[in-house]
């Protein structure tokens, strides 16, 4: 049994390594093969007119004339040592630029995550307890509506009303709690709606089980049954979803950070893409994918830990991640 556990962990790690290698291939390939001569872009970023000689010299300096596999091997070697190169725009090390933005993204992600957990639990429990009645239908309508609102539009609407018309909240940027309200709402509303629906479905499945009927029959109150028997068993699929959404959030909320000029990783990535600052894009993409993969894996492990049935059967059926 213990040996089996170790083997399955090793398998998981090996598979993780394969996935991350694929990620590195994509991160490198995308921009290595993209149109546009990097040397020209760099020179233009430095406000120099790209003459033929200076372009040729820079290409030699950057090793751009070598074969693509060689360039990939060189890039991968440096990346594994933690050297992500230097930003073409600022000339600063990419790793430093990423770290400088990490705090802002972390702050926004955790705040939004707290909001998502609280709201989705409330929506899910209300929907399941009042299944088919008015509160459930209200919760469903609310969910569909907030899933359909584009977050960039919601952000603009909030800015227009709360910041510009009524002057209640600061317009943009990072600062105190006030600065967090609009980005968190914009970011969290649709995620909370989606996960509220998942929790509701999971709760309803558990509510139909025999042991729940038995708990009712032995005279426990509705809330006691819900707390003691139902929530515990309905949580695993939702925990997986929470983990995945945390991965999304930690990767930087690209659009929301742009709308509110939030100085995080998402805004950094967009600005770098628009400026074709390739080392910065590659670094940001690698970092976001890494965080996302780790969060997904952890969510998977948490799911197995909460629902030991999954650890035994390897099947695809019956777990929350059938999609």
């Amino acid at each position: 049994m213990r040996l089996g556990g170790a083997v399955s962990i090793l398998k998981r790690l090996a598979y993780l390594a394969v996935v991350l290698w694929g990620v590195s291939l994509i991160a490198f390939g995308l921009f290595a093969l993209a149109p546009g001569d990097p040397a020209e872009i760099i020179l233009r970023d430095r406000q120099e007119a790209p003459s033929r000689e200076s372009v040729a010299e820079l290409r030699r300096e950057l090793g751009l004339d070598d074969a693509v596999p060689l360039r990939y091997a060189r890039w991968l070697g440096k990346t594994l040592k933690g050297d992500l190169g230097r930003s073409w725009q600022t000339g600063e090390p990419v790793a430093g630029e990423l770290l400088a933005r990490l705090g802002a993204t972390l702050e926004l992600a955790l705040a939004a995550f707290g909001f998502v957990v609280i709201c989705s639990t409330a929506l899910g429990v209300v929907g399941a307890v009042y299944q088919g009645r008015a509160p459930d239908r209200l919760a469903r309508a609310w969910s569909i509506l907030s899933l359909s609102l584009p977050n960039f539009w919601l952000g603009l609407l909030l800015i227009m009303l709360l910041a510009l018309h009524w002057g209640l909240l600061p317009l943009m940027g990072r600062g105190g709690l006030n600065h967090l309200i609009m980005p968190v709402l914009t970011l969290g509303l649709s995620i909370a709606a989606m996960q509220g629906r998942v929790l509701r479905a999971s709760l309803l499945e558990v509510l139909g089980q025999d042991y729940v009927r038995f708990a009712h029959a032995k005279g426990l109150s509705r809330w006691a049954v819900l707390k003691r028997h139902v929530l515990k068993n309905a949580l695993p699929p939702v925990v997986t979803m929470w983990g995945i959404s945390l991965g999304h959030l930690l990767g930087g909320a690209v659009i929301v950070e742009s709308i509110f000029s939030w100085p995080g990783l998402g805004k950094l990535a967009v600005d770098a893409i628009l400026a074709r600052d390739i080392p910065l894009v590659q670094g940001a993409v690698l970092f976001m994918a890494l965080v996302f993969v780790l969060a997904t894996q952890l969510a998977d492990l948490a799911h197995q830990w909460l629902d030991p049935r999954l650890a035994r059967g390897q099947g695809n059926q019956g777990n929350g991640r059938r999609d």
Partner: protein
Amino acid sequence: MAGVTKAFRQSAMARTGGLLLALLLAAGLAAPWLAPHDPLRTDLSQRLHPPSLDFPLGSDQLGRCVLSRVLFGARVSLFASLAASLLALGAGLLAGLAAGLGRPWLQALFKAALDIALAFPGFLLALVLAGALGPSLTSLVIGIAGASWPWWGRLARGLTLGAKEKEFVLGGRVSGVRGLRLIRRYIMPQIAPPILVAASLKTAWIILAMAGLGYLGLGAQPPTPEWGAMLQESRMYLVRAPWLMLAPGAAVTLSVLGFNLLAEGLRDAMQVKRARSW
């Protein structure tokens, strides 16, 4: 297909969603006849007019008619989204079937490819792909399709693996049904309903992603009327001309709402379990 008819008969949500989408698509198709003005004609003497009889939804910072731009924008935004959606569905379905039914090495290969592609958050992958190809509507369609096919691949693979273990499928295989015939007669009927629901949900996501990337400046370039790009341009006029922001945002919301309602209705009628949209 019987399920779809049933869904429309049973579910008011499916009917509302379908009607909404039909109206939006019709508006896009009939834009040249419906639009009161040329969506591209600028007239600086008519800048930032509030909604009036002449400009039903107002005019923008260059004096262009917002209603005409939203109508023509439906062509750009909706048709590009549908194109991306179909591309991704086709590629994902093929990959998923190969990963579920192919020879063992093929299955392993496709599963690894799917897992690698799924290691990126979808929107980020679309952003990077579209960014690498350079800002244009075509690269946006390719970027979004490239970011969405693995999602469909995973869904199709899971469904196929479940479907092929059913006894009547095993029976078919034993009696020598193989290849396309197996897929068409035995697998597809089982996996079609959840795929349909997912297609509707995913198209909603794609419209959002398309407008979002357009908002970030990666899609159709000015002066093409595209809803996301129009929202980006409206940013500077949130107080002076809020109609610039309201019209394209409402258009995106209604389209996404249409697909979400359709998905919910289909799901109820065909009793499909929940599928996540990302």
